[in-house]
Every structure is written in structure tokens, then in C-alpha cells.
């Protein structure tokens, strides 16, 4: 019979189609499964499936006496390539989701974000209660108010294809206010559904005497008028705090921080971009990898800025200033400091440094960059400047008195100040300028060392 000589069609194509369907379905109904990870682990199963399908084909062909199908036909190869592309897309998407959890992979035009708002029933809480506010995704706003009311407004939003579908996703998400110990915990329950994470924004009005802990894994935190301690953590978002009556600690993973008006201490850690801190009655400490522009104004006690990068986490730049009445500004290439009634210490790399009017002891150590220091009134405390590969420019009032020792290797020392006791000496390519100027009593020591740059002692013009 001629028909017996025909090739059978393989069942491999059918199995591949079923597999593809099951993967798409599973991905929709249980995102927590992490299809991408499963594919990465179990892809060799595809080879087994291929072999099994061909084995069944072979046995069936033997039974019916027909030729068996080829090991891989053209259409099967095409389908296999398509499958490989789709499986790698899943793997890549899940990788993105793990590393950037806030990116919406479902994007317009098929999906857009719909929102719902609701107010929870207000309740009265005791003065000085500790209120902890958490959301895995969404903004947190905290307002301190008179009275003893705790009021919470909730804004849920989720990407979906229709408003109704979004509503369906948000239906089960409820925000819980739970008494714990000496305070309350406010958090959304069932925020993760079968299609991902619903964003839950919390706007909390509470008695200003409360102390607040706020944490959002993705979103901004804004707090105003809290008299108690504040501890905020925003992993992907900005932090803005106004009028804090006690200590503020903030931890960021990326984003900006603005902390203005704090009666206690400010502590900022983590990493991010721009930082603005102003009007602090206690200490202000910034420690971490904040790599944008740093602006600090008016800190009554000590200002500390430490920049750490990378795995070693050793400080790359350190600035420490007591009684900052003026401002401290840093960005990638520049550091400006002015108006300090206490001491200042600056240790940096690759920065152009501009320092004005430091009343206390001034220490600067830098590498690669120009340093400019100016005093409007005669310095009363020691000045110590070390640079490597850069110029140093020091401006002092004409009536200043000081003991100076300035050394430039492969450079020169120039001085507008002249006196019999001031001498210049050259040893090889090193120029040394030292001696005394003005009144003997209480004259501060000025020590400057650099290389490959000119040291300039100036009088104001």
C-alpha cells in the first residue's frame, strides 16, 4: 500500500504548543512562581521532551509500518526557535523584575494605571504614641496635627487593561491599623496579587507628639510637623521632611533627600543623588554614596559628610564641620564651604575646593584639584592645607599675623606678604617659603604643602 510509505507527522509540534500555552497560563495565574527562574533551571527538560516525542513517533511508526518522521522537520525547528525566544524573554523579564521591582512591565497601550481613594475610620490615639507606617509600593505622607486623631487616607493604584479589572485587583487590598505595644502599625494587607504589586499610597494625619517610623520599598516619603523621633526608609524614592521636633534618621537606596528644620539630630545613610539639609539644631550626618549635589546650611552642632563607594566602603571624601552658620556645598568636582564658627576638616579627592571664613582650626587634604581659602578677618586658629598636583591660593587680611611654612614640590610659592623674617629657599625643584608675619602673640600656624602647583599668599584687593 502506497500510503504506508508516508511519513507520519510528529507529535513534537503539538507538545511544544501545549508547553507554550501552559507557561503563559502559569505566568498569568501565579506570578510568584517566577517562570523565568524555572525556565533557567529546567530548560534541559525540553531535550527530554524532544527525545520522548520522537521515541513515541518511532514506536508508532514501527507499529503501523510507516516511515517515521525526521528528527527535526523545518516547521518544528521554526517553532523551537520561537519557543527559545519566548523563554528567554520570560527569563529576561523576571530578571528585570528582580533587579528593578518598580518597573511596570505591563505598559500602555494595553495597560494604564487606575486609582481608587478611600478614608479609613478615624481613631483617637494616645499622645506620644509610636506609629509605624509601611507599604511595599506607594508614597507615604505624614502630617503632624493638634489633637489626638489618627486619620488615614488610602490611594490604591494598579495598572490594568480596564478600570473594572483594576478595581478587581485592588478589591482585596485592605489597609490595616493594628495596635502594637505602645503604638500602632499601619500597613496594607494582600498588596501582592496574582498580577503583581498594587501600589498603596498612605496619607496619615496624626497627633504631632507621635514618633513615626515610615518605610516604603518604592515611593516617596514626605513628613511635616512631627515632634517625636522620625525614622524613614525609602528604597526607591525621595524623602522630604519639614519641621521635625526631634531626631530624624533617613535611609535611601536611590533618590533625593530634603530635610529642613530639625530640632534634634539628622542622620542620613544609604545612597542616592541630591541632598539638602538646613536649619538643624543638633548634628547633621550624611554617610553613604550620595553622589549628586549636597547642600547643607545652618547646622548648630557638627556637620559630617562621608562619601563611600563600592565594596570596600572606605571613605572617599570626608568633611567635618562644627557650627556651620553658612553653607557647605559639594558636587562631583567642587566643594564650597563658607561661614563656620568652629573647626572644619576636609579630606577629598579630585575636587576644586573653595573655603571662606572658617573661625576655628582648618584642615584640608586633597589630591588633584585647586584649593582656594579666604579669610575676611585675620585667622586665629591653625590652617593646615595638603594638596597633591594642584594650586593653593590663600587670601588673608593685610593686618593678619601668622607663622607660615609653605612648600611646593615642582612648583613655586608667591607671597603678597613681605617681611625680613619671611624667607624663600629652593632645594632642587622644591620651593620653600617660611617665617613669621605680624604680631608674635597668638599668631596661628599656617602650613601648606603641595606639588605641581603654585602656592599663593594674597592680600585682598
Amino acid at each position, binding site marked *: 500500500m502506497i*500510503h504506508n510509505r508516508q511519513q507520519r*507527522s510528529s*507529535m513534537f509540534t503539538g507538545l511544544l*504548543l*501545549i508547553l*507554550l*500555552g501552559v507557561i*503563559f497560563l502559569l505566568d498569568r495565574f501565579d506570578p510568584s512562581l517566577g517562570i523565568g527562574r524555572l525556565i533557567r533551571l529546567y530548560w534541559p527538560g525540553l531535550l527530554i521532551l524532544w527525545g520522548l516525542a520522537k521515541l513515541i513517533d518511532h514506536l508508532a511508526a514501527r507499529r*503501523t509500518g510507516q516511515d517515521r518522521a525526521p528528527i527535526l522537520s523545518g516547521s518544528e525547528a521554526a517553532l523551537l526557535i520561537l519557543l527559545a525566544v519566548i523563554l528567554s524573554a520570560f527569563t529576561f523579564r523576571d530578571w528585570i523584575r528582580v533587579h528593578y521591582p518598580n518597573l511596570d512591565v505591563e505598559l500602555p497601550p494595553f495597560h494604564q494605571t487606575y486609582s481608587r481613594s478611600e478614608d479609613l475610620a478615624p481613631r483617637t490615639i494616645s499622645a506620644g504614641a509610636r506609629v509605624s507606617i509601611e507599604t511595599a509600593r506607594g508614597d507615604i505622607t505624614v502630617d503632624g496635627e493638634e489633637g489626638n486623631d489618627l486619620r488615614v487616607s488610602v490611594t490604591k493604584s494598579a495598572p490594568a487593561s480596564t478600570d473594572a*479589572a483594576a478595581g478587581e485587583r485592588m478589591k482585596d487590598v485592605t489597609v490595616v491599623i493594628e495596635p502594637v505595644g505602645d503604638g500602632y502599625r499601619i500597613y496594607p494587607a494582600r498588596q501582592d496579587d496574582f498580577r503583581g504589586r498594587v501600589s498603596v499610597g498612605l496619607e496619615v494625619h496624626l497627633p504631632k507628639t507621635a514618633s513615626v517610623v515610615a518605610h516604603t520599598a518604592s515611593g516617596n516619603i514626605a513628613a511635616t510637623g512631627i515632634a517625636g523621633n522620625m525614622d524613614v526608609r525609602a528604597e526607591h524614592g525621595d524623602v522630604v521632611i519639614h519641621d521635625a521636633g526631634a531626631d530624624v534618621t533617613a535611609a535611601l537606596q536611590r533618590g533625593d533627600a530634603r530635610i529642613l528644620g530639625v530640632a534634634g539630630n539628622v542622620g542620613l545613610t544609604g545612597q542616592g543623588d541630591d541632598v539638602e539639609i538646613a536649619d538643624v539644631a543638633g548634628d547633621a550626618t550624611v554617610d553613604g554614596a550620595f553622589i549628586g549635589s549636597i547642600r547643607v546650611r545652618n547646622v548648630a552642632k557638627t556637620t559630617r559628610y562621608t562619601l563611600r563607594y563600592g565594596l570596600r566602603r572606605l571613605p572617599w571624601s570626608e568633611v567635618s564641620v562644627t557650627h556651620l552658620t553658612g553653607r557647605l556645598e559639594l558636587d562631583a568636582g567642587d566643594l564650597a564651604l563658607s561661614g563656620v564658627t568652629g573647626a572644619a576638616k576636609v579630606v577629598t579627592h579630585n575636587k576644586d575646593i573653595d573655603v571662606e571664613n572658617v573661625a576655628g582650626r582648618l584642615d584640608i587634604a586633597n589630591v588633584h584639584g585647586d584649593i582656594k581659602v579666604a579669610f575676611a578677618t585675620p585667622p586665629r586658629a591653625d590652617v593646615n592645607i595638603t594638596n597633591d598636583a594642584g594650586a593653593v591660593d590663600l587670601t588673608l587680611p593685610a593686618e593678619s599675623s601668622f607663622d607660615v611654612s609653605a612648600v611646593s614640590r615642582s612648583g613655586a610659592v608667591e607671597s603678597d606678604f613681605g617681611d625680613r623674617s619671611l624667607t624663600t629657599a629652593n632645594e632642587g625643584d622644591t620651593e620653600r617659603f617660611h617665617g613669621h608675619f605680624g604680631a608674635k602673640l597668638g599668631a596661628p600656624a599656617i602650613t601648606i604643602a603641595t606639588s605641581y602647583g603654585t602656592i599663593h599668599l594674597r592680600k585682598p584687593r
Partner: protein
Amino acid sequence: MADRITSRCPCACCRVRGLMGPLILIALGAIFLADQFTRFTFGDLWPILLIVAGAVKCAASLSSRTGHAGV
């Protein structure tokens, strides 16, 4: 490969393959109904079409071609 398939071919394989169109239409209708009346959308359920097509192909490849009318 001269695998011409006509609706008149009496072999089991071709009869199963003939089910492909109707079954996909039925699945399509069921999915749109589910879209209308349940929380599941077409976007959730469309892979069912792939599974139906794959199942029919598997069944066809396993059924006998004895009496196949194509040449």
C-alpha cells in the same frame, strides 16, 4: 510531502485534524464568555488556544493514517 488533507479523507488522522477548527472556535467562544462574566480577561486565557491546538496536533500524530486518501 504531498499531505493533502480533504474533508473526505476517511483516515483517523485527518478526521482528528478536522476537529482543529471547530475546537479552536469553541475555545475562543468560551474565553470571550469568561472575559465577560469572570475576573479572568482574554489576556489571561488566550494560551488555552495554544493548548487546544497542541493537543489536537498530538492526537492527530498518534492516530492511524490507514486509508489516508492523499498522495
